[in-house]
């Protein structure tokens, strides 16, 4: 797949994530009856951009879908359609569809655009009438003529809500207009909604320009003037109705009742003023001055970050690995030099330099690991979307409480966590949190609470998924396990409450029928556990019948997932990191020769020293007709490790051996192969070094001291 294509996917993914987040805010705002116009604008812009880039890269379905959604958003923006839960459903559905279309292996048919267009059709019944005319406003016709449809809409909305409108006349120098505007925007942020900037009819002279800023604000004019002027020169004037003084009662401007059957938009009595972005997208051609400043502003807001393909970081990490090998080679040479009496001083200096090198290398490694860290909030946003959807599907009222969204973990862990977390959350809503009626009967608030908590604890990140639902009934769990023959009667008799809860993690426990019987949870909990274990994490469960369930996931902050070749030696499993393996061949016993007591074979014209791992590790060799040679290479040096069998390649997580084994050489760690099997991971470069060194020493006639 081409880089350009990847670039598109990455960008699209980012837009979709931002969209989901904004939709959630919008959802919240809608419920509170306080929808901020800039939020809708934000969503509109995201969808618009997505449409553009999708079209450019030939994602026709995606582009078409974005187009229909954009129309709906435009209607929302301009107040032609009211934001309702139904409309939000369609918006969420749209984002979900984008996600599916971008998914791996998704084809253009993954989403039915026609279907989607119909959904949009259904919700976008435009409201009719009820418009407040702007003609009556005491604004110059030339001003009204250049307003965009959006700006007109905002003026009307403010009028109909009875928010006083103002005209602020400011004089800016042409050279500093950008920063002046930015300052003004900043000052206005909390007190007023800026609707537009227009060059004053009077115009400016020379290097200066007069701007008319139209704004709406609820705070008293005197205060507003003070905030906006803030030491500068500015003139604030209330915009009244033509022929009437500014003290006109607002009732006169209220729209007539709506003829639409949709319930009227909630009309908050006091609407907090909202800042409006100065870049209204693609709507006619407003005043030129405005365009210039808007462009300048958007240029400045480019974030101070870069997007990097995770594989590039993996590559850097590998380079660090190579450097570590160089370092140990230098250390080896240093030892040789030190053996020469007259060069001892030189060896000491070299040693010191190498130590410095080592320190910097460690810093580099830490730096790269740090770059890979992303906040868990990214994942939480995605989950919040699902929570909303699942809750609506099941007619549950669920409030999500999130803490620790800023907690950082390795990007790879975040990716791998999303499925298990999704499972846990679906279960929590599906089977944990009761329906509002049941909750009320149980004396709980009808709205269930689902908490996602993350925090760092030493070298680990802890994630809690907690609900205040029905909890699990241990007795029913034990009965189900008995029925399925997962545990024996004797075990069931003496099972502890905690062990009973852990039954849910047993393979085969979780089936559809089990959940209906238990009204508990259990869809693929064994899979959840396995996935988390594979990440080097652990999952614990706590539950109290009637009051809720909590899953606690403990994960390492960083991950070392590597690809490894699994081999068997003397009846044991070992893993060899694939980065060290050149090839694996069948051992041709007839081709083995002995050179100075060492076994070697000839591989494509060069001599390959062999090392029998069972002998190296002093294990009792097993009888075998066929053996294999795993050719490992570090730089130019190669050794063939003789093993009994090859068990294929697998991605594994390397876990450190306990401190009590830190003196044991030859192993990079261990890995969990599942079903209680643990394999040691060979430190291939270390072993190779060891084998070759003992050989060199032998050639020099010195006894190996190990």
């Amino acid at each position, binding site marked *: 797949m081409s880089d350009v294509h990847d670039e598109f996917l990455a960008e699209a993914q980012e837009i979709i994530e931002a969209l989901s987040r904004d939709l959630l805010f919008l959802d919240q705002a809608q419920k509170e009856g306080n929808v901020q116009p800039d939020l809708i604008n934000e969503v509109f812009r995201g969808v618009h951009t997505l449409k553009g880039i999708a079209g450019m890269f030939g994602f026709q379905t995606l582009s078409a879908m974005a187009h229909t959604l954009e129309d709906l958003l435009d209607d929302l923006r301009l107040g032609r359609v009211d934001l309702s839960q139904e409309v939000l459903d369609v918006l969420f559905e749209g984002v979900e569809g984008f996600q599916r279309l971008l998914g791996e292996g998704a084809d253009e048919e993954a989403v039915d655009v026609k279907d989607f267009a119909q959904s949009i059709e259904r919700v976008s019944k435009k409201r009719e009438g009820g418009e407040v005319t702007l003609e009556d406003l005491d604004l110059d016709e030339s001003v009204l003529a250049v307003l965009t449809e959006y700006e007109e809409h905002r003026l009307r909305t403010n009028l109909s809500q009875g928010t006083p409108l103002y005209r602020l006349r400011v004089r800016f120098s042409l050279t500093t207009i950008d920063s002046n505007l930015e300052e003004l925007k900043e000052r206005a942020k909390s007190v007023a909604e800026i609707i537009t900037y227009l060059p004053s009819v009077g115009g400016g002279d020379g290097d200066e320009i007069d701007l008319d800023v139209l704004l709406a604000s609820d705070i008293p004019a005197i205060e507003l003037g003070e905030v906006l002027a803030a030491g500068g020169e500015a003139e604030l004037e209330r915009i009244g109705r033509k022929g009437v003084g500014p003290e006109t009662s607002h009732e006169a401007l209220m729209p007539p009742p709506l003829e639409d059957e949709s319930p009227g938009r909630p009309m908050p009595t006091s609407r907090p003023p909202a800042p409006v972005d100065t870049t209204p997208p693609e709507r006619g051609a407003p005043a030129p001055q405005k365009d210039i400043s808007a462009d300048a502003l958007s240029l400045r807001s480019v974030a101070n970050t870069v997007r990097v393909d995770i594989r590039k970081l993996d590559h850097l990490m590998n380079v660090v690995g190579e450097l570590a090998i160089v370092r140990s080679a230098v250390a080896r040479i240093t030892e040789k030099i030190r053996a020469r009496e007259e060069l001892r001083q030189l060896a000491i200096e070299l040693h010191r330099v190498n130590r410095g090198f080592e320190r910097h290398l460690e810093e580099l490694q830490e730096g790269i690991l740090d770059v890979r860290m992303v906040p868990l909030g990214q994942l939480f946003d995605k989950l919040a979307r699902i929570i909303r959807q699942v809750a609506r599907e099941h007619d549950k009222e669920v409030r999500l409480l999130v803490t620790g969204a800023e907690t950082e973990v390795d990007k790879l862990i975040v990716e791998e966590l999303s499925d298990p977390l999704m499972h846990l959350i679906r279960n929590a809503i599906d089977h944990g949190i009761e329906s509002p009626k049941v909750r009320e009967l149980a004396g709980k608030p009808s709205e269930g609470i689902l908490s996602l908590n993350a925090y760092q604890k030493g070298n680990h990140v802890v994630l809690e998924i907690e609900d205040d639902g029905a909890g699990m009934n241990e007795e029913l769990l034990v009965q189900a396990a008995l029925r399925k023959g997962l545990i024996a009667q004797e075990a069931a008799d*003496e099972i*502890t409450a*905690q*062990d009973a809860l*852990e039954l849910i993690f047993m393979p085969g426990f979780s089936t559809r029928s089990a959940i209906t019987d238990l009204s508990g949870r259990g869809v693929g909990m064994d899979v959840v556990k396995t996935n*988390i*274990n594979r990440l*080097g*994490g*652990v999952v614990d469960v706590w539950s109290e019948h009637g009051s809720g369930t909590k899953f606690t996931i403990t994960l390492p902050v960083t991950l070392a997932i590597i690809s490894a070749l699994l081999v068997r030696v003397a009846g*044991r*499993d070992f893993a060899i990191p694939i980065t060290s393996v050149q090839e694996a061949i069948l051992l041709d016993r007839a081709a083995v020769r002995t050179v100075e007591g060492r076994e070697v074979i000839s591989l494509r014209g060069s001599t390959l020293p062999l090392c029998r791992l069972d002998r190296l*590790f*002093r*294990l009792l060799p097993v009888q075998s007709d066929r053996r294999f040679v795993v050719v490992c290479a570090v730089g130019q040096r190669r050794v063939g490790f003789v093993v009994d069998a090859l068990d294929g390649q697998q991605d594994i997580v390397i*876990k*450190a*051996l*306990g*401190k*009590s*084994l*830190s*003196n*044991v*050489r*030859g*192993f990079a*760690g*261990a890995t*969990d192969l599942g079903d*209680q*099997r*643990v*394999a*040691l991971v060979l430190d291939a470069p270390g072993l190779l070094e060891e084998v070759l060194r003992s050989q060199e020493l032998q050639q020099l006639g010195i006894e190996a001291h190990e």
Partner: protein
Amino acid sequence: MSDDPKRQTIVPASGSAAVRAPTSASMLAVPIVRELLAFVIADETYALPLRSIREILKVPPITGVPRAPKDVLGIISVRGRITTVRDLRRLLKMPESATDKHTRVLLVEAPDDEVIGLLVDRVLQVYRLDEDEVELAAVVGGDMSEHVMGVGRPRRSIRGSEEEQDEGNEEILVLLDPGPLLRRS
């Protein structure tokens, strides 16, 4: 190590029901000097402070580690955590024996924040010994090893019922100190 109640709850996670009792008992007003978990190795009774025991496991498959010290049996995965298992018989220089259905692995908090698995022949029960039931090594003196904290002489019999107890057959618990016992060799 703390007396945090959370710690207590994880002790019996998959252990025997016997370990569960002290959680509530420790709330009684009676001053309890030491809570100990007693177990048997080569027919002798030993005990470790209950606070230092995280969990009691049935023996899982143990992966041997070549080149490891002799008392290391290997490594196991405890819910995804790689844990070193050491043979208490070998640590105490006792003859080896095969494992049977009573054999257990105690997960013990060792120095350096490491949790170590210790293979024991059989787990007995939890003891709460009053001050006058414990003789500290410092008081006893003599040739005791560094890893022996002292000796416990419970007034009530360990294994049998009351009638088995008589003056000449007093039970003795050897109290082990996990620190020196598990310090890196």
